[in-house]
């Protein structure tokens, strides 16, 4: 007998993580290794600005992001 396809309508198969899986091995920021972007904002290269932004995000304690 085939299982009723709607029997699992309300169910999911997933896990809510109590904490981020032990400090994940950081592979680096997404733009690492790309070199200068050539896009200047306020006299600075976008690559430099982004690196600062990524650091700022990762240094926050998670209360805002």
């Amino acid at each position, binding site marked *: 007998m085939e299982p*009723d396809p*709607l*029997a*699992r*309508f*309300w*169910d*999911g*198969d*997933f*896990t*809510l*993580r*109590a904490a*981020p*899986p032990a400090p*994940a091995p*950081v*592979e680096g*920021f*997404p*733009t690492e*290794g*790309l070199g200068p*972007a*050539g*896009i*200047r*904002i*306020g006299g600075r290269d*976008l*690559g430099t*600005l*982004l690196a600062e*932004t*990524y*650091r*700022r*995000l*990762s240094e*926050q304690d*998670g209360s*805002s*992001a």
Partner: protein
Amino acid sequence: MYALHALWRADGRLALWAEDARAYTAARLHRPATAPVAATAHPFAAPAAEVARLLAALGPGPGWLAEQAPERWSTLRLPSLSGAPTPSPQLPIGATGRGVSLTAWRVPVLLFPQPEAAQLLGELFDPYWSGASLELPGTEGSVELAYGASLRWLTAVHDLAWRLGGRGRALPVVWERDGAPYAHWQPAPERADRREADALVRGCPPAVLAEGRTGAAELVAELLDRFVDQEIRTALDGVVAPVPDGASAAWWAALHRADGRFQAPEAELAELREQLAVWLAGSPPADSPVRLCFRLSEPLGPADDNPEGRPSDDDWRLDFLIQVVEQPSLLIPAAELLDGGPAFAALARQLADPVESYLAELDRAALRRPELRPGRRPTGLKLDRAGALDFLRNAAPTLTEAGFGVLLPAWWQRRPALGLALTATRTAPPGTVERAAQVDRDAVVDFRWQAAIGEVKLSQQELTDLGAAQQGLVRLRGRWVEVDAGQIAAAVGFLARHGSGSLPTAELLRLALDPAATVAGLPVTEVTATGPLGELLAGRTQDTAAPALPPDFGATLRPYQERGLAWLHGLARLGLGGVLADDMGLGKTVQTLALLAAEQYAGTATGPTLLVCPMSLVGNWQREAARFAPMLRVHVHHGSERGSSIPSADLVITTYGVLQRDARALAGTSWRRVVADEAQYVKNSATAQSRALRSLPVTVHRIALTGTPVENRLSELHALLDFANPGLFGSTESFRERFAVPVEQHGSADVGSRLRRLSGPFVLRRLKTDPLIAAELPAKQEITVWCNLTAEQAGLYQAVVADVLHREQGIRGVERKATVLAAIGKLKQVCNHPAQLLHDRSPLGDRSGKVARLEELLTEALAEGDRVLVFTQYAEFGRLLQPHLTERLGEEVLYLHGGVPKHRREELVARFQAPGGPRVFLLSLRAGGTGLNLTAANQVIHLDRWWNPAVEDQATDRAFRIGQRRDVQVRRLVCVGTVEERIADLIEAKRALAEAAVSTEEQWLTGLDPSTLRELVTLSAEAIGAD
């Protein structure tokens, strides 16, 4: 008891709803007898206000968010049985029986826009408890609230996005939202993140999709995209102060505030997008064994919903493929990889995680073209025509540039563009007679334009249909073609205004010969015509066979000379002029004479040919005509004795100087052809000589002869082309603007190439270094160059002759021999230069026809990059010549004579032989005739005749060594009508009889009888070259 459920709506909002256990019980008591025919209210769903109360009971955060949330109804498809929805497992009702089906129910919901949704899902995320016990105001005791799996799943997805943002796993990009630019943080998940997202896709409760959404993968991708952007934006809000100017600054600021919209000029925005895409997409992994490819396929079969119909024009497909770098022909569809079948196993042997590698590369592609990532695990895209065209025009080059493989339909690579084709017909005006065989540049032809795509000419109806299609890709006569609405409109407008009419033949030729010609902004794809004009346009002038030469023509043409004759003949047949620009020594003279002889032989010579040349060449033409084309009646219109009328002749030879003076008399003859030899003399079309030349009436055509390279002096080329075909190549100014400036000042190879194609039919240039030509040449070319005397030379010559004839009468024996030899020697010196005879150290100036010819030959040879040995038997003459030639040529001339010491002699030879060394080496025959290796030279000039040809040959062999060079030209300069010519004839005659007969130096001359001696030395009238 409540069960709280959630779903994500298509409008980008979170919907919360709840089941109420008490309502369920009440509903069971009032169940309708029949199933509802349309969506009706869910019988035990809690009112939205009740849901808000529940959220408020959870805490102030959820409560505040609930207060902001509007109440709405959503229609959900829920499991139902016997006309009623079945309760979720979170309600403590018990198991549901079988026979359940999905039925639509209207459910009251609370709606949360994206920012509030993100906040609420963050608040409700609870990994430990799947519900809460609540104290509801006005209700005794606590109320149980169970979180449905749909709600918990959404909090899990949000949690993943929140963690991605917290690790900076996002890239800043420019999106377009509601037609406006939008600064967006795009997720950049790592491998573990992808796995987690995949797990969420697999574990998605169907209840999340109850509103009718399909595809958990697409939903997860959308939610991650929204929430990562939301969370980073929230975290950065206010960090960056607005920067005043520029698209980049506006975009950067918008990445740091709640609303990502920003404004920027379109051009700056496009540049930002391009820069960003190029930077972020980076390069493909350096050592990856596989490459992501995109293959676009056109609609091939009928549409699925109409199997009998014709293929749909909007059923294009873009497949994603994995290409194994070492086996480029092995392309694995992404679908097979994601299925985990044999393809996955095969790739897994080369990649740690083939799926991850595929998705990472797809992400990289999506940075350039976001539409390539429609979901989490796409395998391809369906495209309509507009999408296909966008991919062909825009995405394909971008992806190729970024290192992806792109496979396009073959026709795209050679797609023809919309253009205009011109058809011309020539009709003789009333009352005139058509000259059937010739192209008349001044005639007017009727024309008709037609729109064309490649070679396909379009009917008016087809053009109208294309315009009405409003599509960039259209199937025309079974072939896909790319069309541009603007171009179609231009074509329609042009055809309406100028579709037919008449224009001069010269204008038609310009359109036909210019491959870059455009009309109304559209390329001219084809120009066709009837009659001889059609033959020219079809390139058949190049293919004509050489005409037959009379049996008594005095030379056998080499193959390339036959081709030259055929070309000249073809042009003459069409009435078009040409520039014969062969290298010196390749026989421009004999080809021209062959044309005249062939026409006379065929009976098609309708009038005389006028040949105009520098004074120094008159004798040469005269002698060459007598030698090669004795059947021609030749008249030399030159010298002080010339009359004012032009006698009947086949070939009239005159000089540029005489032409200028006798312009009126010469213009009185209707010339079949005018030939300008050394045509660089008329390079300046403003000079009186040039004007006189161009004003001569010509019935067939004009020919310019020149051996001087023309590519680098384009104004001169224009002058030559304009002489040959007046007006055909436009004005001097337009030619300069179109060709000379781009080529000479900007070094444009394209324009240079276009000019060569444009002028190609009218210029024939062969180089002696061309291997094909060199193969047709003898190893050593020996050429006699005929020179004339100046008036000063002629006067001196006659004085010497008178003296010797007088003195010879009274003497005998040894004395006579000495007198005769001395006199002949003096005559030879006169032929070289008056200063050599006079020993007066006077400047050489322009006093010698032979020296003038020598200067012309050296100039031409140096222009062709040649190196030249110049031999004279007189050391004194060499000493006079060296400084003169150095000055005239503007470069160093070496000189070697018998008085040069050995070490200096070796140094001179080494300098001449060295690459980049001096290119003209003057040698006395005695000093340079033996023991030297001078193989750098490929031209040898003998200024004066040695009585023994063996001595000349020995000198020539300094340059010509069998096995070392096969391209040496040897010229012997001989003054027409002088002792030089007669001795040369005697030598040749004697050599023809017996080689040994001329081996005894000059002694044989001294035995000549008086009458023979008189004949030998007397000056002919034709010797004088002065105008």
